[in-house]
């Protein structure tokens, strides 16, 4: 009895979570432009999608920004974690608090304040400003996922490496870095997905003629979203899903090994 109730409960949650996305996926195969009519099964929106120059440009922008910003954020975040671990407990917790604030802050506030900052420094809006903003909001997520790993590290291993004659750099890359790697990887993937589906911050910091997928989709609101976008959203959803599976697999795989 309790078991069935449990199953129904879980099924309900999944239905509520995924029914909308599933509807969108089904509509991406609908030959008719309106959702009210089923015009037959088709792949034409998918092929139209790949022939649409604007959408493809936006896709390239999105991926480029996501990759570069998460890479840079990961490097900065890792360095930040390493240096924070060398600090006094009090300074560290203050710094951690400061890096956590942007995550709690509403995106729109971050977006508008970044826009105002760029304006006051006279920076020309374009891909560069989007990139800077994405790096900015990605860093806290990277720190968030590396810091716990950092705390688990045994400082003696690093010191032992130094005692055995390794230079600081060698000791870091041979001893500390491999232990941090799972955290760094999941931080990178987290940053990547955050950057991929950000809309508000991108909207405020993008320049004329530069679009990412999220801003491109949003501009279609007035005339009705085109089915090409359903096709695209399906592809994005599948991509993000795969990424999330990767994120969740990475640390757990490691733990299992450690448990053994």
């Amino acid at each position, binding site marked *: 009895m309790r078991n069935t109730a449990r199953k129904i409960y879980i099924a309900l949650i999944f239905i509520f979570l995924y029914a909308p996305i599933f509807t969108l996926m089904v509509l991406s195969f609908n030959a008719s432009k309106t959702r*009210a009519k089923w015009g037959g099964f088709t792949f034409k929106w998918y092929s139209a999608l790949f022939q649409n*120059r604007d959408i493809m440009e936006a896709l390239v922008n999105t991926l480029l920004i996501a990759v570069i910003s998460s890479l840079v954020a990961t490097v900065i975040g890792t360095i930040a974690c390493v240096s924070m671990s060398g600090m006094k407990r009090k300074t560290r917790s203050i710094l951690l608090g400061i890096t956590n604030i942007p995550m709690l802050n509403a995106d729109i506030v971050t977006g508008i304040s970044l*826009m105002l900052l*760029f304006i006051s420094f006279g920076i020309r809006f*374009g891909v560069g400003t989007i990139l800077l903003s994405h790096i900015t909001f990605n860093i806290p997520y990277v720190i968030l996922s590396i810091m716990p790993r950092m705390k688990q590290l045994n400082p003696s291993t690093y010191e032992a490496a130094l005692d055995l004659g390794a230079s600081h750099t060698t000791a870091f890359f041979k001893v500390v870095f491999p232990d941090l790697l799972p955290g760094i990887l999941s931080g990178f993937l987290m940053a990547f997905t955050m950057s991929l589906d950000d809309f508000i911050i991108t909207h405020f910091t993008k*320049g*004329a003629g530069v679009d990412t997928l999220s801003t491109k989709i*949003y501009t279609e609101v007035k*005339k009705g979203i085109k089915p090409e976008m359903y096709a695209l959203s399906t592809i994005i959803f599948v991509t993000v899903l795969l990424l999330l599976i990767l994120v969740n697999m990475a640390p757990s795989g490691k733990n299992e090994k450690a448990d053994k």
Partner: protein
Amino acid sequence: MKKKNVKTAILTVSCALTAMAALTGCGSSGGENGEVIVYNWGEYIDPETIDMFEEETGIKVIYDEFETNETMYPKVESGAASYDVVCPSDYMISKMIENDMLAELNFDNMPNAKANIGEQYYEQSKGFDPDNKYSVPYCWGTVGILYNQTMVDEPITSWAQLWDEKYADNILMQDSVRDAFMVAEKLHGFSLNTVDPEELETAKNSLIEQKPLVQAYVIDQVRDKMIGGEAAIGVIYSGEAIYTQRENPDLVYVIPEEGSNVWIDSWVVLKDAPNKENAEKFIDFMCRSDIAVKNFEYITYSTPNDAARELIEDEDIKNSEIAFPDLSQYDNLEVYVYLGEEGDALYNEMWKEVKSN
């Protein structure tokens, strides 16, 4: 050890910053004759016409899109992207004029805009641009009722029928302040730009009274819901009427007898536009009849370009009462004008009362 880390950190950050600066610096180099930065509604132009403009003039177009007047305004006002040409709606244009954001246009540089755009549209534009100094109409339309012949007993001709209990749960209203209040204001014969508290109170009470009959307050979904036969009557923009009728021939569009809103989206040039000359060239190009007819076919919203209308091949659409109602036949169609901050606040306050009632 600590020192070294700090050094590396500073080095990396400064490297990253230099790279960013380099990236931001090298923006567009422009075409041989410079560039023009256009900010238009999403899906509101045939992309081919932009290519044609670039080819013919050697001016590079940097094209950007917005989704509502309200999201466009702060971006333009902040100067974040320094646009040249923007295409806002009527009431937003009057707000921009009031805030001194627009440049006066020189119509001598735009022969197509002078010759091809119908006189009646300039006349109608005076509602928000009194001297026709700042704007060139690009798209226009009316707001009316779309109804499903098979689901109503008699032809719909009046806003009052949206209050008929027969159609309870079969009515779709627009989920935006001005469009919703417009219906109630016209029902009582008020101006749709009224800020008279008493008139607004009456309109508000009517909307509250109507609320139980309304199936849903929607924006985009009117289209799909009406095509799917999910509702009998819906308030809709005329631009959508042609498309919905093509999908479902039972649908009929009318402009109610009490009058309605006529809306115009027009090209304007910003006061601090970096490429004013190119901006006028762009606007004029968009007014050329062969270009305008291409855009009409792509957008399907009515074009104010009389010369372009002559070029439409489909006779039904060319003579369609929906796409091209004769504005001179109506004396009760009004454009929205900006009501000022107080007016806006009053409307929003009342709309909140309607929605939360």
